[in-house]
């Protein structure tokens, strides 16, 4: 979470940052990965000789569900927890709208009035949601050329990918949580879970990491913004 000193300046950028300041998008994405990755893992453990790759299909189903119902679910959570505390603002457009119409002159007293064109909910999908899901799916169907090194390297790559892609966005990940994700790779290697289970740990670890990151963000948000009624009681 950014501190106040580097708050984005324009109203549009602030609205983009606002969408992520309670951590719900990360929590929901992380939970989806954990649940569907866990289902895949459970299936593989209980029926290791099943035909095809059920783990792959579980994860693909998770991605579809998040794509279909993720936004309404985040909206529902925000309407119950975020909006009563800090108010509602229209989330940045999925497809960026043109800035304010300028009928007579191409110049205006511009304080970047339009919604940010490159930092919106769509970019959360492309930079994080699809990044994580496709990376996990790729690992599951991969050729496993380095065998034992495959999952640790994949986790390291995922940490770098998430950190670098979101570095200049409205929701950057700090370097040390990314480092934790990167170090889970060698930890998985030490546990030595076997070639069947090992790739399935990637969605689980990535999901748990995202959910934990979101939960920390949410805890900070709730601490900074108590429910109006509670705040009034404290003042009284």
């Amino acid at each position: 979470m950014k501190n106040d000193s580097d708050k984005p300046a324009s109203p549009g950028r602030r609205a983009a940052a606002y969408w992520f300041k309670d951590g719900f998008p990360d929590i929901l994405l992380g939970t989806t990965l954990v649940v569907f990755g866990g289902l895949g893992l459970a299936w593989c453990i209980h029926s290791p000789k099943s035909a095809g790759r059920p783990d792959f299909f579980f994860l693909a189903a998770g991605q579809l569900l998040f794509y279909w119902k993720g936004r309404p679910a985040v909206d529902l959570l925000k309407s119950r927890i975020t909006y009563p505390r800090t108010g509602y603002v229209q989330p940045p457009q999925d497809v960026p709208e043109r800035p304010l119409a300028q009928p007579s002159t191409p110049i205006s007293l511009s304080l970047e009035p339009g919604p940010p064109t490159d930092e919106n909910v769509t970019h959360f999908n492309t930079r994080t949601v699809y990044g994580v899901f496709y990376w996990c799916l790729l690992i599951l169907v991969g050729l496993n050329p380095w065998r034992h090194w495959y999952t640790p390297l994949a986790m390291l790559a995922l940490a770098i990918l998430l950190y670098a892609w979101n570095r200049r966005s409205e929701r950057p990940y700090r370097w040390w949580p990314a480092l934790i994700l990167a170090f889970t790779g060698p930890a998985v290697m030490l546990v030595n879970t076997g070639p069947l289970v090992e790739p399935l740990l990637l969605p689980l670890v990535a999901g748990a990491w995202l959910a934990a990151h979101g939960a920390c963000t949410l805890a900070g948000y709730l601490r900074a913004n108590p429910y109006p009624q509670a705040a009034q009681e404290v003042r009284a």
Partner: protein
Amino acid sequence: MTTRIQEIAQLDRLIHEPARLAIMLMLGGIGEADFLYLQREGGFTQGNLSGHLAKLEEAGYVAIEKKFKGKVPLTVCSLTGKGKAAFCEYSARMLGVLQSNGQQGR
């Protein structure tokens, strides 16, 4: 110089007031927001924001709507077409004045 003064005199006084200009800028950049968000972002008091919004609504620049998000009632404010046009005209005029001032200063 006289033209510039005339230009300044023609500025939309309803928008020119700093608090209302801040409201117009915020709503112009974000589409729609509820009362609480505007209050927190702009650092207004409840009565202050309410008064300014009433003036902007009366002029037809801002639409105020009671909505529900989930089960939470929200007072959502947004710029109307008239408000967008007025803000564009205001900003163009203001920028023209400031630019001509800069050119004369050189």
